């Protein structure tokens, strides 16, 4: 499994290179072979997994932190893996044709493959940290994918918005996962899932749950974080079809289903997920019913589907989980197809809005047929698989352990509006003939590469509907994993006349009525839209962002005022206050001792020279005088090193002192001479500051030399220099052997300083000279 995930990144790295040598028409097909192979690999595992087996694989990764790169394949992961690779195959074929003439197509392939690999890693990860890493990788790759047309400012803004929200949620998720790992005593999901009692009895259970939910809800575009998803439609259509049908946005749903056995089955879970899901579902379907943008409508209906899934997982009964998995599969099939169909419309006619379309069935007969099929599935009408999914869903919400009425009403409303949007999608662009506006561009025939995906997915939707036994095995396995125990899904097209069917029929009638009055419905609901624009979640997000920018501008103005002395005063003042506070509170037995015993006379002289030369450097009015004073200081410091057993330091100090003089001679004397710029009171104030800072250091050193908390580690180096380092100069052995990595860093710093100086001297920017 490690191989399946990592090979994706490898292929992604090769993709742009390979792409350069292959005509774009064929490159899509070629790259599609890769996910197709993975699909067959995963499909082969199906019999074993549905028999209850679980594949585990583990490699040490960060051994010191006990983070393992471990993977787990069970029913849930398998269903997702099949969707990711299966739909990915068609997306790659589709991309080759859809963006065949785009200059950066190679980059898009690389990003899509990277994204696919991250997504596979996410659903296969057994380790919480690994899962989080892949989770963030999907956020990053989807940011790059959404912002693929990066010359457009709106696209960039949309990509950034999606990234901020999902990555912000990712931070919450990380905290939640760490809490989960600590509370459960393991970072391996396969072990955590059996720790249900311990986890739910943990005092931090609720915060942990909330944090994880924030992560899942932002990723899966749940209300009130839903707004990034429609904006993300700025992405090229193949990206939308992939990210926003089967993969990226389903990651949150995956996480919820994955953790359901461990965290689910309590009131908090039911209320939080159930209600958030229901609200999201209604918001999504309502917004979908009033937009006229083709991709926007699909995006909002995705929001609806995600809400439905969250609600079902929240309900958490066996039937609800079966319904969730069936709905997940149905949605991936029809939504992937519908996005690709939206792309075909755009590709062939240039239309991006329903109001620009009409009567296209004659020009695009195959597309129209696929659209009708998938729209039936979206509407939840027989004989499509969507019908089975919706019936199971309606039955299970009525059987919810609590809030059954709320869920049922919400599901009914959502089904009604769902019919309306399905009718818009399935009829409007194809069969309604109006006085057609001019098509935005000349008609282009889509060709088989663009049609393969929609047609196959639509046929699958039909096939699974007629023969529900086909996907039963995979769905049972997935539902078992989500439930935590074996569950058998029994799906049938005809359930007899029951409440669910009656509800469906009522919804069909109401929804059709609404479709006939679609224009009136849109203008009726304008008021709500106006309100949302003023105070909706997206507006709040925008206001929050603006406030953040204003706040940082304000604090930059205050803190970064450009006066060096204020920076220095702030830093030094903070240091003095902290040191003095720590010393005066005397928390941990700090002593201050003065001991002048054993100081020889000449040592007093050296100390006096040190102090005097530094004061001379301050008092002199000449640059030359100051440099001379610094020289005297430097050589006296070297003398100090000599007398107190540091020959290496003394040599270094003398040499550096020499070079410093050369440096100062070369540069300093090309600068203007000393000037007295400050007023006398200011100089006195600075002198006072300086004395306080100096005094603080004196006290600090006295405290440090009189107090030892723990033995120095130097003794180890002293004892092992010869035996382990084969050197008798202990300082040098430390530099090149014991702490070699530090030294490497230090010479790197030195190199950087030198190269920086070189750049400053040689690379003049044009305009300024």
């Amino acid at each position, binding site marked *: 499994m490690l191989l399946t995930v990592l090979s994706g990144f490898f292929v992604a790295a090769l993709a742009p290179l390979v792409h350069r040598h292959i005509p774009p028409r064929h490159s899509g097909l070629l790259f599609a072979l890769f996910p197709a192979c993975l699909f067959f690999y995963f499909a082969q595992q199906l019999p074993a997994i549905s028999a209850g087996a679980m594949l585990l694989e583990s490699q040490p990764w960060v051994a010191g932190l006990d983070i393992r790169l471990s993977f787990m394949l069970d029913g849930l992961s398998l269903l997702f893996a099949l969707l990711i690779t299966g739909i990915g195959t068609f997306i790659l074929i589709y991309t080759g044709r859809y963006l065949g003439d785009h200059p950066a197509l190679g980059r898009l392939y690389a990003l899509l493959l990277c994204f696919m690999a991250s997504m596979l890693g996410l659903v296969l990860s057994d380790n919480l940290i690994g899962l989080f890493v892949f989770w963030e990788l999907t956020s990053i790759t989807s940011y790059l994918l959404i912002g693929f047309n990066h010359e457009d400012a709106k696209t960039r803004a949309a990509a950034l918005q999606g990234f901020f929200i999902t990555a912000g949620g990712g931070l919450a998720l990380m905290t939640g996962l760490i809490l989960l790992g600590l509370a459960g005593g393991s970072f391996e999901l396969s072990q955590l899932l059996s720790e249900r009692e311990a986890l739910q009895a943990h005092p931090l259970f609720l915060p942990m749950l909330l944090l994880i939910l924030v992560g899942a809800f932002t990723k899966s575009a749940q209300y009130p974080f839903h707004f990034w998803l429609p904006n993300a439609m700025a992405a090229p259509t193949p990206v939308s079809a992939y990210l926003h049908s089967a993969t990226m946005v389903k990651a949150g749903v995956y996480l919820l289903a994955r953790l359901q056995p461990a965290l689910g089955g309590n009131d908090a879970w039911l209320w939080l997920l159930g209600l958030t899901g229901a609200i999201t579902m209604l918001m999504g379907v309502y917004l979908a019913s009033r937009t006229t943008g083709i991709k926007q409508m699909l995006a909002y209906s995705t929001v609806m589907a995600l809400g439905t899934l969250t609600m079902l997982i929240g309900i958490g009964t066996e039937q609800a989980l079966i319904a969730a998995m069936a709905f997940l599969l149905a949605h991936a099939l029809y939504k992937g197809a519908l996005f690709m169909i939206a792309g075909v419309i755009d590709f062939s006619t240039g239309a991006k809005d329903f109001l620009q379309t009409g009567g296209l069935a004659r020009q695009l007969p195959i597309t129209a047929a696929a659209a009708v099929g998938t729209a039936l599935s979206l509407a939840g009408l027989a004989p499509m698989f969507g019908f089975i999914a919706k019936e199971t869903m309606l039955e299970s919400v009525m059987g919810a352990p609590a809030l059954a009425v709320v869920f049922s009403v919400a599901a009914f409303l959502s089904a009604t509006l769902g019919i309306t949007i399905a009718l818009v999608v399935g009829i409007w662009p194809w069969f309604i003939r109006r006085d057609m506006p001019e098509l935005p561009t000349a008609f282009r025939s889509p060709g088989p590469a663009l049609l393969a995906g929609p047609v196959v997915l639509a046929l699958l939707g039909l096939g699974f509907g007629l023969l529900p036994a086909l996907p039963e095995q995979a769905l049972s396995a997935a539902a078992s994993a989500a439930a935590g125990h074996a569950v058998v899904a029994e799906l049938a097209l005809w359930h007899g006349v029951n409440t669910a069917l009656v509800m469906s029929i009522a919804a069909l009638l109401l929804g059709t009525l609404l479709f006939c009055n679609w224009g009136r419905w849109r203008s009726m609901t304008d008021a709500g839209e106006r309100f949302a624009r003023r105070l909706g979640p997206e507006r709040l997000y925008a206001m929050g962002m603006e406030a953040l920018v204003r706040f940082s501008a304000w604090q930059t103005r205050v803190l970064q005022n450009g006066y060096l002395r204020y920076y220095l005063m702030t830093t030094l003042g903070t240091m003095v206050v902290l040191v003095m506070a720590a010393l005066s509170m005397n928390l941990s037995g700090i002593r201050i001792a003065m001991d002048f015993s054993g100081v020889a006379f000449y040592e007093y002289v050296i100390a006096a020279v040190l102090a005097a030369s530094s004061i001379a450097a*301050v008092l002199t009015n000449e640059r030359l005088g100051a440099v001379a004073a610094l020289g005297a200081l430097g050589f006296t*410091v070297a003398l100090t090193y000599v007398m107190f057993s540091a020959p290496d330091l003394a040599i270094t100090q003398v040499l550096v002192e020499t070079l410093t003089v050369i440096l100062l001679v070369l540069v300093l004397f090309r600068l203007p001479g000393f000037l007295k710029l400050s007023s006398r009171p200011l100089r006195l104030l600075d002198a006072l500051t300086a004395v306080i800072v100096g005094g603080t250091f004196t006290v600090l050193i006295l405290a440090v030399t009189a107090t030892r908390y723990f033995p120095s580690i130097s003794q180890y180096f002293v004892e092992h220099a010869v035996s382990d380092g084969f050197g008798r100069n202990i300082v040098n052995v430390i530099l090149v052997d014991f702490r070699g990595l530090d030294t490497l860093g230090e010479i790197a710093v030195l190199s950087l300083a030198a190269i920086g100086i070189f750049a400053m001297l040689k690379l003049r920017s044009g305009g300024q000279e």
Partner: protein
Amino acid sequence: METLMAFVIGVLYATATYMMLRRSIVKLVIGLVLLSNAANLLLFTTAGMMRGAPPLVPEGALQPEGPVADPLAQALILTAIVIGFGVLAFAVVLIRRAYDVVRADDINRMKGTDT
């Protein structure tokens, strides 16, 4: 000796601070030199000062006879001296370039070049 050095280092820090608070850029450079010397001596002093016991192992021995001065602090200071030179050179050249562009010796007049 550490006590005496504590006072000397205090004087060094005080002079460095005073010089760095000046508005003349050349004085800032001198303040930097004073500061790096002060910091090196601070490390040296707090590690404990010892007379006539360099951290060298006599030939043929496995360990030095008797206690020696702290080699770790010396290794730290050794690199600090060399890097201090690099950083000082960088600062000096930077100031020089800034002076070429702004033509002002007064640090207060160098603000606002990037806003």
